[in-house]
């Protein structure tokens, strides 16, 4: 009799993966019967680095946590820090922050739509969607000075003001995306091939979404109306009635599959465009920084004792930052980051179980995973399953370097 079960390891480094993660699957024919997801390959120790630096340096470090949504971590950082320090950003700064965050949501969602088109094998659609994404990146470059890392936020405000030329460009962009998004609805949602490929794939029920703690568009696609902008409003979102978009509002029924995730994300682009339009129509006048001088700001941080939690609805889900300032140094004494992909990756194992091998790319892509966000801690276990502590690891690393040096014959 021939062997019926095969073991397929994918990753951590694999041509199909953009970032390191390991999926171990056992397959019978085309069906996956056993699956295990292992993470922790992209841990960079950013929280520890932030605790050694001052708060302004750590803010720009937090911009580098995520590779795509570079403003969502700083947003949670500034909201949490302002709570801990007891300062509040001026209204104009709050509105500008909201505009930047929504611009980023547009570009991140269009990026995801391109990626999922690529994963189902529609590469011409990938190029078409990314062509549309250029417009929002150009606007972000005009406002902030760079396309991806905007460096706009500061504790207690924003660093750059919106000028008349920026508002003109934003209005032009809004008109462009109203047409572009209508085209995207036609292309993605009305296309029979795309529907056949995604309907019923990666189907997450409401109960399962609650069980695996799914957040963001993944949870909303499963029919849970949860959105930080609606549940804990902050900044300009408090003035706008934001309601989380769920498929039952749009089509009346919920499947919770990859098609519903597409639906939710495309309608969220519409919602973001509406929020930006409201913000530029009602942009308050005034200053943009609560404490304009960075040296004064750092000395205030040094004098302050306090803690705070900042939450922001990033394109992928909720980002939460916890801070503690102990009043002895000008940086955070404790800094903890919770990223949305950590929760959403939990849904891979139940969804892959029983799926076909060809569905793996869709299941992996539909939550819009970001490995570099979610790896917050890395532990190493020895053969008996015990966690190896850092001093032992350091000693082993030194020993290995010595051994390699000896093998290669390196002279000191």
């Amino acid at each position, binding site marked *: 009799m021939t062997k019926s079960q095969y073991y397929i390891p994918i990753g951590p480094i694999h041509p199909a993966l953009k970032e390191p993660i390991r999926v171990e699957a056992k397959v019978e024919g085309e069906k996956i019967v056993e699956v295990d997801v292992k993470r922790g390959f992209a841990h960079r120790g950013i929280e520890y680095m932030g605790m050694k630096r001052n708060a302004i*340096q750590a803010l720009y470090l937090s911009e*580098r946590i995520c590779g795509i949504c570079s403003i969502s971590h700083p947003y949670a950082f500034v909201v949490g820090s302002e709570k801990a320090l007891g300062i509040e950003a001026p209204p104009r700064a709050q509105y500008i922050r909201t505009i930047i965050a929504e611009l980023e949501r547009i570009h991140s969602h269009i990026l995801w739509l391109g990626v999922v088109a690529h994963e189902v094998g529609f590469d011409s659609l990938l190029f078409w969607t990314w062509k549309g994404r250029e417009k929002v990146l150009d606007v972000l*470059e005009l406002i902030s*000075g760079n396309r991806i890392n905007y460096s706009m936020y500061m504790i207690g405000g924003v660093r750059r003001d919106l000028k008349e030329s920026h508002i003109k460009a934003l209005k032009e962009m809004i008109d462009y995306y109203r047409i572009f998004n209508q*085209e995207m609805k036609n292309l993605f949602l009305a296309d029979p091939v795309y529907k056949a490929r995604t309907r019923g794939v990666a189907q997450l029920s409401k109960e399962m979404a609650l069980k695996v703690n799914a957040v963001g568009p993944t949870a909303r696609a499963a029919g849970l109306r949860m959105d930080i902008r609606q549940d804990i409003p902050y900044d300009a979102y408090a003035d706008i009635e934001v309601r989380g978009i769920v498929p039952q509002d749009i089509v009346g029924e919920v499947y919770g599959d990859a098609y519903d995730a597409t639906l939710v994300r495309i309608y969220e682009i519409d919602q973001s465009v509406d929020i930006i339009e409201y913000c530029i129509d009602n942009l308050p006048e005034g200053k943009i920084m609560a404490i304009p001088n960075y040296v004064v700001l750092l000395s205030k941080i040094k004098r302050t004792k306090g803690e705070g939690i900042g939450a922001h609805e990033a394109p992928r889900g909720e980002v939460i930052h916890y801070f503690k300032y102990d009043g002895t140094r000008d940086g955070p004494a404790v800094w903890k980051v919770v990223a949305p992909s950590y929760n959403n990756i939990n849904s891979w194992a139940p969804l892959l179980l029983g799926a076909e091998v060809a569905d793996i790319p869709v299941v992996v892509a539909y939550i819009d995973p970001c490995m570099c966000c979610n790896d917050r801690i890395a532990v190493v276990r020895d053969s008996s399953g015990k966690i190896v502590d850092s001093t032992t690891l350091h000693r082993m690393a030194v020993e290995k370097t010595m051994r390699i040096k000896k093998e290669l014959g390196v002279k000191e």
Partner: protein
Amino acid sequence: MVNKMMFVLLKQVVKKPFTNPFPVKHAPKNVTELIEKVQKGEVKINPPVPLPEEGFRGKIHYDPERCIGCQLCIKVCPADAMEWIPELRKIRHYVSRCMFCQLCVDICPGKKFPGEEKNVKALSMSNDFLLADYDKYSDNLIEEPPEAKEKGL
């Protein structure tokens, strides 16, 4: 099967490419020769993408004459791209480490020469973004006072 997607995608065939064109249309046989020709002005190459009119964050320009040696840029730099030269009381900036956040430019107090009304900052953002190099310590990627190089500090 004919659907909306086919029309949209077929329309792209007659449109002009959205992306920035390559410097020359076809790959040259000899790149060095081409670069020499461009420098002589015999061949024209397609320019890189246009920049926004103002506010672009490119390579940092450092004017040592305006630097007062306050070290505030070293205090805020998130990437540790600034180095203090104690002998000259000036800084050295490594562009290969820089993350273009503009904090040092914001915090720089600058200096005014006699006859000027306002302080002019020692650090400023330029529009230069083509920074590829073989060596991360090449002259193009280090901004320092000229005396530092002469004295070998």
